[in-house]
């Protein structure tokens, strides 16, 4: 078994948006891409991937079309809407600010101990 890392609350949506923003993609590929890119650190529970996709679609951040894959099968391809793009940008910026702040705090406490 691969080592697992729990996703912080609310980050799944952000990650999915980011992955989908790279180009139309179907559900299984999203899961694979997330796993590959995070080098196996982030493992999305597949059970919560689809509800998340549907939720984002429902909120109008994603849009889906049925297209043929390279193997000739019909699959549901998601893409990011303009609204989704904006949402991704604000959330990504927010995330970045947060991680910077968190790492600053962590460094500071190291310094304090030393």
């Amino acid at each position, binding site marked *: 078994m691969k080592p697992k890392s729990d996703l912080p609350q609310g980050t799944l949506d952000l990650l999915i948006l980011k992955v989908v923003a790279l180009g139309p993609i179907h559900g299984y590929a999203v899961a694979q891409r997330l796993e590959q890119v995070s080098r196996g650190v982030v493992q999305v529970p*597949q059970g919560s991937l*689809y509800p998340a996709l549907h*939720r984002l679609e429902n909120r109008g951040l994603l849009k889906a079309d049925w297209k043929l894959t390279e193997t000739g099968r019909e699959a549901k391809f998601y893409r990011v809407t303009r609204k989704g793009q904006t949402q991704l940008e604000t959330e990504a910026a927010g995330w970045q600010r947060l991680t910077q702040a968190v790492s600053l705090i962590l460094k500071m406490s190291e310094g304090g101990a030393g």
Partner: protein
Amino acid sequence: MTWWHRLLHRRQHEEQLEKELRHHLDLHTSELIAQGYSPEEARRRANLALGGPEQVKEMCRDARGTRWLEELLQDLRIGARTLRKNPGFTLVVAATLALGIGANTAIFGLVDALLLRPLPIAEAPNELVLLVRGDGRGSALSYPDFKDLRERNEVLSDLALFNQAPISFGNNVRSEVVLGGMVSGNYFDVLGIKPALGRTFLPEEDRTPGTHPVVVLNHSFWQSRFNSDRTLVGQTIVLNNRRFTVIGITPAGFDGESPPMKVSLWIPVMMTSTMRWEPGEARQDPLSNRQNENFGAIGRLKHGVSIVQAQAAIETINRQLEEANPLPPERRLNPDDDRSLRLLHPRGIMMGPIREMAATSSRLAGATVLTVLLIACANVANLLMARAATRRKEVAVRLALGATRGRLIRQLLTESVLLALAGATAGLFLAYWINQLLMAFKPPFPPPFTFALDLSFDTRTFAFTFLLAVATGVIFGLAPALQASRPDVLPALKDESNAEGPRVRRLNWRSALVITQVALSLALLISTGLFLRTMRYAQQVDLGFKPDQVLQVSFNLRLQGYNEAQGREFYQRIGERLERLPGVQTASVTNLLPLGFIWLSTPVVPEDREVAPNDRVFAGNVSVGSQYFETIGTPLLRGRSFTAQDTSKSPQVAIVTEKLARRLWPEIKDPGEALGKRVRVGRADSISCEVIGVAKDSRNNIFNRIDMDPEPTIYRPFAQNYSALASLIIRTDGDPRGLISAVRREVAALDENLPPQNLQPLSETVSLASWSARTGAAVLGVFGLLGLLLAAIGIYGVMSYSVSRRTREIGLRMALGAETRDVIKLIVKQGMGLTLIGAVIGVLLAVAVTRLLASLLYGVTATDPATFAGVVLFVISVAVVACYLPARRATKVDPMRALRCE
């Protein structure tokens, strides 16, 4: 995509979801196979990784946000299926609810028409405002006030003036008096009424008094009197014996700004002075007199101006006008009179006193039907609880399978709301029928005051019924749903159907419902009883005259332009002609009809003593012909009647009622002592007459009020006290209706353009006086009995249920030697306990409620002991029957079978 869109494409979505997940699993499986797993193992792992397709699907459905709707649909399907499977139960419940909801829909239709509905005007009816002075009981404005307000205000786009009066419409043998509107030239423009034919008034037709005899006709009047003749526009018709040119016809459905009064035609207010409503000497120009506050006004708010802002602005101008033109003190009845002007949106009936009456009756009727609905709800709740007992197993299974309690309650409530909607649908038909019935009870005002009330259903009625049904479903369904969904899974599954705990509590719920029902129906029936007593009183009270077999007919000769000499001659000749008709015993002229709507009074001063001006006695001022007392059936107690010798030239004479005699001369022992005494009557005590007779007191009272004691009255000969407005009363051998057409012919023979008014039996005027009591008794009576019937069914149901639960106990008792009588006593005692508690509460409730009815009752107090006792006894006997039937069935139980069962 909206939620309903998604809902509509639900099946498609389900298929796509399925496809998407299969695609995922296939891809994952093939990847695992590529990694070296066997196909079965690969499929298993893929499934495992996804976490079970069904759960994922559920979560996706949740994510889609239409879950509540899908569940609702599911609930509706389950509900409909359950109801279809129990047609008997469904029918009983729906019928019960149809009664309750139908009654409420009917009354809502009435309240809507009376109090809520805006004028039937297409153009922004919400911008229309009526000007009301003070409490809104009287008229609002004088013509000069109107002109000032119209010119000075900056909040209304325009203001129109209106007033109504009877107008005699000359039409050969079909002459009649109709209600006419006198309106300012901009009236139709302010209301936004475009004529269906012709045109409305031009500005110059409303500028100079008496110069433009033009008339706009009501569409329905044009239809019924002129057979929708399109060539009528441009022709003339005769109004108050004057020719008017018809210039236009209003669109259908518009009856004026003052429903329920139906205005038949409109003339410019500038024609008022030529219409002869005032006697000749008093006929001054009503358009220049600021004290003549006989007009109403309706305006249209400017865009963006609220009614509150407009009212403040109008009131400011009003105060300036009041200061500039103070009312002379003698015109001011009460210095504290509220002289402020208010703005109201026209909704339903706006005439102050009638609106108040309508509001009172509406509250009463509303409370009544709501009570009936509550009783019906209690009954249905009872039935549902009984059924919940039989459904415990079904519920337990669903709980065990993981349904949440909330979900289960929601499903049970959906079912009861479905039931209520089914009931409401049937209720709509019932309401339609009830409304037809109610229209038969509309007050029989004599023409021209046609009472036009539109009780047809509109969207508001449907919306009300729908909301009421949903609320009803929740109200009667909540308790049973809470009860049924209580998670006592184990005993229910083990079929311990008579587990002690829940049963006792369920019975308590049901007992409370029975008590409520008994109390509510008792209160209703007591109210009914009081109205019935009032009605009986109205029928039995000694009126002092005998209305049966008397026909009445009234005339307004002033409208027709008769002078006094012509008028005297007319009344003389029509009296002679009518007396000669076959079937007529006697006929007489009189200026006032008993229990009519007009009443005149005069101060009467005895000449043999000094009376301070404030102590003067006011008496009804009735002038009558020589045969009056025989015709009306009022006995003369002392002295003589008037004769043909009492003319305008002979000495002035009078007949007083016994009450007046005793007021004027308190010391007399016998009314005969009043004979020969002299009194002065009239405004300035100007006329001196000798008392020649004393008549029995008669309830010929003011404004159709049968409940007031007889007014003191003085009768004088018609020849000595002429009135242009007068009636003839005719005593006939049989049914007075048979003479109506003959009377019409005799009148037309003298003047074919003179409309006979009030041509109907005198008994109808009398019956109008007890109209409110009769209507109250009928409406409350029907609903009260309905309530009692429902309550009886409720008691019966609870007792039957209790008996069926106690079969084993009863069997045991009988096996141990209990007599039939003992068993019946046992059961009846239980039911009577509930009934008595309900009766006590009901009596207390009735005491509180009937006090509100007091203004509608007479001849009986609001806490009449006989009525209370009678109704309580009646309700208890009904309850005894409802208990006895199940009790008797209990005694038919075969002890052996009872012991073996369960």
